[in-house]
């Protein structure tokens, strides 16, 4: 019988009798499931679900029935019927049959930590299957609000999500068409950045426009006493390497030249290997990297997620017993120093703002050490309030931040790196020019089409 329907708040599929959404936790009792993509496992194949009128545009009482003046909360359901999408052990026996093939919109669970994955779909043979009737919310505002939330969450919506939000159900694009629908936009964008890379026409003396915080980050590292311990959280993996490598490299070079004691830890499986690759790239021949006992301590992978961080803040020496190769690190100089003293500096190298925020909330209050963040450009805006409040001492964000930091060091950059940097800046400039033109053209088209209609 009927098994699932889409959450009106986040779009996640939920059991029909779920009290709360398994993804976002919104209260689901009292909602008309048929208006939100109800899917009947047995009936769907035999007959299409009855057409339901779309909910009134912009009326939040459809998704939040408790706002209605006449809302009468239903009796609490039995404890075993709580939505358990992420807690399979709590699921009752009778629901396991009904939830055999819930539609998956995003990579979940085991592969949820992998960056940049496209939606896991089966490859259909022959003609693409028709879009499931009633599987998508029919109200445009609700769908647009979901896309808005996705944007705020740092999750770039795919083009077909935009298409589904704006197209009538009978004209939905098949999900296996890649970027075909608006391919001209992507072709233009690619052509622009390829031209920029090929032309390599950025001025040789061009400087990057970095947001405030680079100078403060430089000063925080420069003012550390020799042999101070710096606890580094490595929170990016190869998915963000294209941007983060260029951003983090100058900061690592600075740390190694100052001969500080580095303790590198990561909560991402791919983090320790990425950290080792970058430390090797940043090794400028400073004496500190020449002997094992004084070399940066790669404390490896720290499991436990957010629950492990308070212990790391209180007793880092107890939390980090082995390095990336399984060798005990407890007797290394840097770790020994952490038995009695707090680290002199916390350095977060992260592709996403949430990783910096976690350390700000869980580790820094327990150590009182200043914190410097090296982040992707997209992570910079959500972290600005922490910079303003003084919780983040300095921040180096994005490609521009990395270049500005290198210039702040007063380095003569090697010609190969300078050439790469200039070429990529040229590509970035041209891609942005194309993007602005596309946005202007799209808005003008929408404006004129709107007037005609």
């Amino acid at each position, binding site marked *: 019988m009927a098994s699932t329907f889409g959450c009106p708040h986040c779009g996640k599929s939920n059991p029909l009798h779920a009290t709360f959404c398994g993804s976002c936790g919104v209260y689901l009792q009292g909602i008309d499931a048929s208006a939100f993509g109800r899917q009947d496992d047995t009936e769907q194949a035999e007959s299409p679900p009855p057409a339901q009128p779309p909910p009134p545009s912009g*009326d939040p009482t459809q998704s939040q029935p408790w706002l209605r003046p006449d809302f009468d909360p239903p009796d609490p359901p039995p404890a075993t019927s709580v939505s358990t999408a992420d807690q399979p*052990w709590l699921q009752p026996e009778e629901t*396991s*049959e009904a939830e055999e093939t819930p539609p998956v919109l995003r990579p979940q669970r085991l592969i949820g930590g992998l960056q940049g994955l496209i939606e896991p779909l089966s490859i259909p043979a022959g003609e693409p299957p028709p879009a499931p009737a009633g599987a998508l919310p029919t109200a445009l505002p609700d769908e647009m609000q979901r896309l808005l939330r996705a944007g705020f969450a740092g999750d770039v919506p795919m083009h077909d999500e935009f298409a589904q939000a704006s197209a009538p159900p009978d004209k939905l694009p098949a999900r296996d068409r890649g970027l075909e629908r608006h391919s001209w936009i992507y072709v233009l964008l690619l052509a622009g950045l390829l031209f920029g890379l090929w032309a390599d026409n950025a001025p040789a003396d061009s400087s990057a426009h970095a947001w405030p915080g680079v100078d403060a980050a430089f000063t925080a590292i420069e003012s550390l006493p020799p042999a101070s311990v710096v606890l580094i959280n490595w929170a990016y993996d190869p998915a963000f390497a294209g941007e983060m490598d260029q951003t983090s490299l100058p900061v690592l070079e600075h740390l190694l030249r100052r001969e500080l004691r580095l303790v590198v830890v990561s909560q991402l499986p791919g983090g320790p290997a990425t950290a080792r690759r970058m430390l090797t790239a940043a090794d400028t021949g400073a004496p500190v990297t020449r002997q094992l006992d004084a070399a940066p301590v790669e404390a490896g992978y720290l499991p436990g997620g957010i629950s492990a961080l308070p212990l790391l803040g209180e007793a880092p020496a107890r939390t980090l017993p082995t390095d990336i190769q399984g060798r005990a690190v407890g007797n290394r100089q840097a770790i020994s120093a952490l038995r009695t003293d707090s680290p002199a500096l916390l350095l977060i190298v992260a592709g996403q703002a949430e990783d910096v925020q976690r350390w700000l909330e869980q580790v820094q209050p327990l150590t009182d050490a200043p914190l410097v963040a090296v982040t992707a450009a997209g992570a910079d805006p959500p972290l600005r309030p922490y910079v303003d409040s003084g919780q983040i001492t300095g921040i180096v964000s994005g490609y521009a931040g990395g270049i500005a930091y290198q210039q702040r060091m007063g380095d003569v950059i090697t010609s190969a790196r300078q050439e790469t940097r200039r070429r990529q800046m040229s590509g970035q400039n041209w891609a942005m020019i194309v993007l602005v033109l596309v946005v202007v053209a799209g808005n003008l088209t929408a404006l004129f089409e709107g007037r005609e209609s």
Partner: protein
Amino acid sequence: MTPLDSGLPPIWESAGFVAGFVLSLLIFIFIVRDSALVRGAQYLLVGVTLAYTVVLVWSNVLWPRLIGPLIDNPALPSGEVTAILWSNWIPLAGGILLWLAGIGQMRRRRTSGGGGWLRAPAALLLALLVGVGLGSGIAGAVQGTLWPQVRRAMGEGDLLAAPPALLLSGLLTLLVTGGALIHLQAAAGAEQRLPFPLRPLLLGWAWLGERALWLAAGVIFARLFASRVTLLIARVDALLFDQRAAEMWRTLLSLVGGG
């Protein structure tokens, strides 16, 4: 050689570059059309990552922190038994219990029923894990975000004596934050419950909040998109113009040209 060197022969470095090159091209096919090649590359990525994670968890977590200590010292002299019980034996038992319960859940999904007696103790363990995580998260949010931000706002001093720019910034923040909250939570569906004299004011405030919300979304999305374009540029640059890529292209072209 420094302690940071991988120790791998150069041929492996080159092999890694070529593998990355080919897989990048396979993924890029998605720009034209989703296909089995794209999916194959993605599934390879997922499989390799999971396998790597398993090895990493074993070598960095399970062996040095759990299995190894238990083999070395299964039971310490009196006085330390409690410590090893809490730090090793109970985590081991809990892990095995959760693992068996997960396996049982998968089997029940296939065979529709039976063997669910592990669910209750597993649910208790899971509740403990979720509870600790949520507790840490909430405590951290209060001590690391809420309180410092409130303290900073309160520490600005006399608002009326503040510089005009700061005053304007504060008022704008208040206006936009309030408007966005009213728009998201109350205005559209509950305007009838608003007191009449305030209704036009609150609806106008919500109107402003709605526009500010979309403006903020545009700004954040633009920054996010620029970040992703940077990633794309770095990959394309590595494929076409990087020193190793350039050498590879030259070799390929010379092979094609018979030179």
